[in-house]
């Protein structure tokens, strides 16, 4: 089965994964080195990944549903939903932090751990996993001090290492700048599909309201 994976919760990334009953092979992948070019680079990257794979149409799409900065996140979701519609194939959502969790599990964590990435506005997006990578809490958006003690994987940890240390949470070396990416996200999705585990829909996990304020004059007050 050929799966196209897309994640834009951090930098734009895409991957093509070929899976059999027992193996997952990465047929090609792309990650942008720039943080704000999602709508520019994502489709051209997918186009060249598909061309490299001989123009085959994927059998399924896995897309990161966040949390992550809204505008970039929507680029990935709009792309995935539209490709799915045209090709008539399933589009499966994966919580983006799960991608980092998969990489964390490869390090053999002793017990529960946290994955955290930057949520801007001095906050982190984070979630809790058990040592096999199963989600046990989250995703949340809070300040660093709200994270539980223990190991933290992901760029959010690198960003607030000192504040996290103060609450007993320590950043795992090598993961100080780790972001969700399409290869890990797609691998997670392929394994879930193979073992019959449910995946998510494609609703974005914004975790925050749009921040719009109702103006005073709209509340019945004239000036």
């Amino acid at each position, binding site marked *: 089965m050929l799966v196209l994976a897309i994640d834009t919760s951090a930098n734009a990334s895409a991957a093509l994964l070929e899976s059999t009953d027992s193996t997952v092979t990465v047929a090609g992948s792309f990650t942008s080195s720039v943080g704000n*070019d*999602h*709508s*520019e*680079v*994502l*489709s*051209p990257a*997918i*186009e060249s990944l*598909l061309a490299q794979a001989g123009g085959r149409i994927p059998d399924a799409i896995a897309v990161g549903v966040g949390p992550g900065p*809204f*505008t970039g996140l*929507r*680029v990935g*979701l*709009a*792309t*995935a*939903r*539209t*490709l799915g*519609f*045209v*090709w008539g194939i399933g589009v499966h959502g994966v919580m983006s932090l799960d991608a980092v969790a998969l990489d964390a599990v490869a390090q053999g964590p002793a017990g529960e751990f946290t994955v955290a990435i930057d949520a801007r506005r001095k906050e982190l997006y984070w979630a809790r996993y058990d040592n096999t990578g199963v989600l046990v809490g989250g995703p949340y958006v809070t300040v660093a001090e709200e994270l539980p003690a223990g190991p933290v994987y992901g760029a959010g940890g690198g960003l607030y290492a000192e504040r996290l240390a103060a609450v007993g949470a320590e950043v795992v070396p090598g993961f100080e700048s780790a972001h969700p990416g399409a290869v890990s996200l797609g691998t997670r999705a392929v394994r879930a599909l193979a073992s019959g585990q449910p995946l998510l829909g494609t609703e*974005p996990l*914004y975790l925050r309201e*749009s*921040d*719009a*304020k*109702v*103006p005073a*004059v*709209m509340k*019945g007050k*004239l*000036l």
Partner: protein
Amino acid sequence: MSLSAPLVLGIESSCDETGVGIVRGTELLVNAVASSMEEHVRFGGVIPEIASRAHLDAFVPTLESALKDAGVTLAEIDAIAVTSGPGLSGALMVGVSAAKALALATGKPLYAINHLVAHVGVGILDGGELPENLGALLVSGGHTEILQVNSLTSDVRLLGATIDDAAGEAYDKVARLLGLGYPGGPVIDRIAKEGDPKAIRFPRGLTLPKFVGTEENPGRHRHDFSFSGLKTAVARCVEQYQKRGEEVPVADIAASFQEAVVDVITSKAVRACRENGLTNLLLGGGVAANSRLRELLAARCASAGITLRVPPHSLCTDNGAMVAALGAQLVDDGVLPTGLGFSTDSGQPVSLISLAV
């Protein structure tokens, strides 16, 4: 690619309307629009993040219904066109990402086109080919411009534009001040009919000689607009009535405000046409529905010998058919498609009718 009567699908997401339109040459097949307007009502104006969220949810369903209603398949489409700017950047990115994915998955050529020029191009769907010596007056919640259209597909120039608020934005803000709700255009237009447009003399922005100059020696803002001073003047006026404990004469203020907006828009548009040899004028944008604007513009065009063309309302407000209509003209003229690598441009100038490869 040069085709006559190409089948083109157009995508629009620059503000709060998610539009998918399909045209065959100059014939409109479908104009599907989903609007998030209701979600902005309690804020009294378009909230970009809310609009962007709505675009994401509306796009595929709108595309699906457009294809179904037009009775065409994606395989039959000759080209895809999408608004790349100007507009709200987060909103544009949703339509552009979807359009790129659509082009990628179907293998169809993609044109990244200018929203303002598309407001002119839509005229083709109602009355066929556009006349020579054409000007366009675009008035909406997001823009207020006067354009000179030498060639729809290769030469469009900006003669004048607002230097602050768009006219429709001024309507929304004044409606808010008067407690009339959102959107402001239709409700002010309605209430103005019960008021005296001469009751209060509100300022006409950028009409002083130092801005306007003369035809031989034009000032910097001869054909430009400004509505932010007008909005402030209305706010002060309302404030004064309230301070004195008097009832605010809502209808008179609405009528006088509307007269100030419409007077300056129509006089400047007609002057710009006259001085640039434009004998035809196309009116576009959501505010084209305003009854007083249409009435005064028609009268002033008639006395200046300018032929006025106003497309039906559903084609004046933001929609995908206008994007498709301009796209079809570009295909017809053999303009090369943009491809997948372009960026959105929230300030895309009218001279960039479609983005180059």
